[in-house]
């Protein structure tokens, strides 16, 4: 299988890439790692007539910290996330989740920006970004805007990105002290997308949970934020009974598509179980166990 015909562009600056996107409008698409886009082009689910390769743009790469915020260039690959000591020290949920994505070869090419911009509910970074209160810098012909991850994902393959915009950077606040975190991902085999997964980030003050984010992967048209479950646990000492109630609330918002990974009932049930596991592991970590 090979993709349909297109003209290939390899800009070396972001400004150049944006002006190409503007010039070609609906006919143009940017290429990041290509590990979602090229398979779709082979199947003719995507048929851009102009492909704008972002791989030559250095300003879209790299990870740095500034004033308590970590800036991750959109073209940073999964393996670069895993290799980042800064992330393991300051926001370890991101590299830990990246280790659960695909396989070594795919992680050499696949980028955090592509995983987010693609808008696939099976992708793992959307739930991770919502759980870490990340924001996205979107760069367009008329300048930049910064939008929160929570609210960015509108539907399957449908995000706040305008056709002429490029996701430039991801901004993630450094984890405060006493943070616990976990990503529980159920998959059929190494390298598979999630059957269901839950991300949790929480903060403890003594035994009291002062803040908690709970987000879910692949059990709805987008990553989901289990707000009622979060509200239930906020301000409380989290007990096993409360964990079970929170899992019920998370299951109540699930709307998974039936496929080879399972039917609706199974996936919903697994989302509940992943939620329980992620909360328990987060608590253990926040307590330093």
């Amino acid at each position, binding site marked *: 299988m*090979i993709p349909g*015909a*297109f003209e*290939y562009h390899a800009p070396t600056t972001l400004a150049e890439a944006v002006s190409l996107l503007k010039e070609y409008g609906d006919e143009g698409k940017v290429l990041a790692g290509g*590990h979602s886009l*090229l398979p779709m*082009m082979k199947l003719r689910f995507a048929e851009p007539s102009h492909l704008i390769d972002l791989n030559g743009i250095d300003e879209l790469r790299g990870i740095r910290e500034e004033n308590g915020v970590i800036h991750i260039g959109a073209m940073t690959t999964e393996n670069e996330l895993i290799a980042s000591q800064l992330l393991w020290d300051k926001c370890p949920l991101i590299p830990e989740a990246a280790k659960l994505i695909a396989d*070594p*070869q795919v992680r050499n090419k696949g980028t955090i920006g592509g995983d987010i911009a693609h808008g696939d509910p099976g992708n793992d970074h959307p739930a991770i970004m919502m759980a870490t209160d990340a924001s996205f810098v979107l760069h367009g012909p008329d300048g930049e805007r910064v939008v929160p991850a929570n609210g960015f994902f509108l539907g399957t393959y449908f995000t706040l990105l305008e056709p002429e915009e490029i996701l430039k950077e991801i901004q993630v606040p450094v984890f405060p002290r006493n943070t616990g975190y976990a990503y529980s991902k159920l998959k059929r085999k*190494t390298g598979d997308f999630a059957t269901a997964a839950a991300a949790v980030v929480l903060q403890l003050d003594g035994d009291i949970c002062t803040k908690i984010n709970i987000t879910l992967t692949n059990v709805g048209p987008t990553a989901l934020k289990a707000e009622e479950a979060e509200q239930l646990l906020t301000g409380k000492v989290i007990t096993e009974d409360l964990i079970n109630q929170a899992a019920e609330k998370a299951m109540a918002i699930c709307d998974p598509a039936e496929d080879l990974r399972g039917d609706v009932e199974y996936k919903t049930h697994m989302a509940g179980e992943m939620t329980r596991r992620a909360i328990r592991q987060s608590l253990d970590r926040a307590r330093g166990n």
Partner: protein
Amino acid sequence: MAKQHISFTLNGQKVETLVEPRELLIHVLREQLGQTGSHIGCDTSHCGACTVDLNGKSVKACTILAVQANDGEVLTVEGLAKDGELHPVQEGFMQEHGLQCGFCTPGMLLRAYRFLQENPNPTEEEIRWGMSGNLCRCTGYQNIIKAVQYAAKKMQSA
């Protein structure tokens, strides 16, 4: 669509060719450059049979455009043996029976080659994780793990 001129280093030799931008690296290697060692298994970036080394990293050549290899350095199974002597990973697959039909083997070898540079002294668990992008329908993997361990040992003692 107009063809583009590309050139890259393939197994130490400069090669050049004309490609359409939509052509994948695996097709150009096999069909234009005659290097049919790298296989096409799934054609959907899952199986790893097409794994080659591009600029020092393992990649699936069925999901890379040939134009993206321009000016780069590519290593395929044809470039592993030197002066008629098998590379330790090749020797390991032979000694430990790391193959049966052999279809997955060129990809396995290229991934093992790169993996052992990333992690020269891996545990069994690390080998399983590091080789998880390559599927084999014959061996049950046990002997593939042993083959990588054999190569690691040989390369350490060299």
